[in-house]
């Protein structure tokens, strides 16, 4: 059963990665990366159960916090630095 959960998580992570590659805007990619991070956190927890080592949950707990801070940091970087400055005539922002 945990094998099934692991497979579903990996499939979803692959889908999120596909979206992160396809884009088209940087915000699509951040949505995908945020989702990927949440799924990675779940994968750590499920793997902990699969290998019967519940200590993995501590790592998952820390990952939950770091993932959130990381997404906010990436977004601020893309919003306020020159890399993420949208062009006035471009609807999609920075590609």
């Amino acid at each position, binding site marked *: 059963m945990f094998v099934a959960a692991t497979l579903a998580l990996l499939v979803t992570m692959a889908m999120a990665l596909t979206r992160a590659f396809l884009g088209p805007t940087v915000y699509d990619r951040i949505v995908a990366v*945020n989702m990927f991070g949440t799924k990675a956190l779940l994968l750590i927890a499920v793997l902990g159960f699969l290998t019967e080592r519940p200590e993995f*949950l*501590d790592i998952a707990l820390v990952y939950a916090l770091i993932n959130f801070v990381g997404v906010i940091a990436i977004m601020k970087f893309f919003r306020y630095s020159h890399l993420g400055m949208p062009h006035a005539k471009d609807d999609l922002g920075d590609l």
Partner: protein
Amino acid sequence: MAADIVSWIFILLGCFFLVVGGIGVLRLPDVYTRMHAAGITDTMATGLLVVGMAFQAGFTLVTVKLLLIVLFTFFASPTASHALAQAALSAGIKPQLADDRRPGAKGGAPSEGEDR
């Protein structure tokens, strides 16, 4: 044994919602709608999987940690989505709208976003 069956049901349902969220992120047409699909995996799938795992663990410290994970996710995920949506809108990415009910909008002019 009964707890085993219940946890199977929760985890398999969680897997279903995970894959649905993944499909949604691939299928939906723009950033704002994709955010809703990502929301499914963040709330429903996380919740169901963690409840399933909690049934496996029983009443131990492991359950407490699992519930803390859900708590953190449920506080952090809407904050991140909101910040993303606001950043995308202020960066000038236009949502595909079927209906714009904001005051000052041109009153629900159907755009290309309808029935895609």
